[in-house]
């Protein structure tokens, strides 16, 4: 059984998730300096059995990667942290219920651009879901979120005129452009249900080819 624990509990225990890389974070208990150690457990909602995370036993850092334990995004999870210092312990402090599907943050898409004299082509690739090892099969977030699409901005560097496009597949061709002009493209991943949006990618600039007849 658990000892009586008088140490204050870890604070702000929560998941931080990007592309379903789900990492548990917390802050040290109030009023404790160095030397605090922690242990972590997690449970699947509806199953309820707490499972200890062995790699996060007696750790001094204040995070623990639970990505593989929470990889099934059709499930929801709880995690909990306990602190130890000078022989004293704290109570367990739990997260709110964590839903990877709706609570993960998503990255911008990968963008590649090419040009002709009067058009540019943009190829967009959705970010991949976190995976435990390079050997594992890659899962695109486009498979996880069937409603995934892209918002694309195209800027004429000379005139500063900007166009916006909403793209459902992964290719965009922008026609009727000026030859020999630099255009800069930036794109955002956008999911409609649940509502998720990434930041915009950095700008990818390319020049249209010079007009051969000129």
């Amino acid at each position, binding site marked *: 059984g658990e000892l009586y624990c008088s140490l204050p509990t870890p604070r702000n225990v929560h998941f931080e998730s990007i592309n379903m890389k789900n990492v548990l974070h917390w802050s040290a208990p109030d009023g404790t300096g160095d030397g605090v150690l922690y242990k972590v457990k997690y449970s699947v909602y509806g199953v309820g059995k707490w499972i200890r995370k062995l790699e996060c036993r007696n750790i001094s850092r204040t995070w623990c990667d639970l990505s593989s334990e929470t990889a099934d995004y059709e499930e929801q999870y709880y995690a909990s942290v306990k602190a130890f210092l000078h022989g004293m312990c704290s109570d367990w402090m739990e997260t709110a219920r964590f839903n990877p599907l709706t609570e993960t943050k998503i990255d911008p898409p990968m963008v590649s651009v090419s040009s002709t004299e009067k058009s540019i082509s943009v190829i967009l690739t959705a970010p991949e879901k976190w995976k435990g090892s390079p050997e594992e099969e890659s899962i695109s977030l486009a498979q996880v979120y069937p409603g995934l699409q892209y918002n694309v901005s195209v800027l004429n560097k000379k005139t500063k005129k900007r166009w916006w496009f909403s793209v459902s597949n992964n290719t965009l061709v922008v026609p009727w452009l000026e030859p020999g002009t630099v255009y800069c493209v930036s794109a955002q991943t956008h999911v409609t249900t*649940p509502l998720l949006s990434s930041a915009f990618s950095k700008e990818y600039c390319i020049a249209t080819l010079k007009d051969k007849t000129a």
Partner: protein
Amino acid sequence: LANGSKIFHFGPCRISMSMNEIRAGFAAIKANIQGRDPIRTVSILSHPHSLHRIKSSEKCCIIHHLFNFYVDKVFKYCTTEDSYINRKISSIANSFLSIKRNLVQCHNQNMCKCGQESTEKFKQILTNYKGLNVTSAAMKSLGELDILLDWM
């Protein structure tokens, strides 16, 4: 489509839903409502099997049953001491009511066929619900709304 509505296809049944409005409403109360549900060992909607196991041909039947379930057995038993939470719950309930009307039309036009799998699944959901007292069961069901929305 009005207010960010989207057409959902459940077999032959096509329904326009403002899903993001419901999701935004739920997101605003999720932590509060789920915080009132201390029972981690049982899920009303996912126990013992996830909704994701249901064949798409029977999806309309289950959704029809579930919208009736939420309107008749969940929202009305989820009153809290917090008026903000109550307002959000009634807004979600109103959205469900209007969707339910569309589902009834699909059901009346025989577009929502119920097979053994969906019938068994809904029976299990009711068993899970009756396994708790009404208020706990209703609050837990409301806290699982994102499970339903994610599956839809």
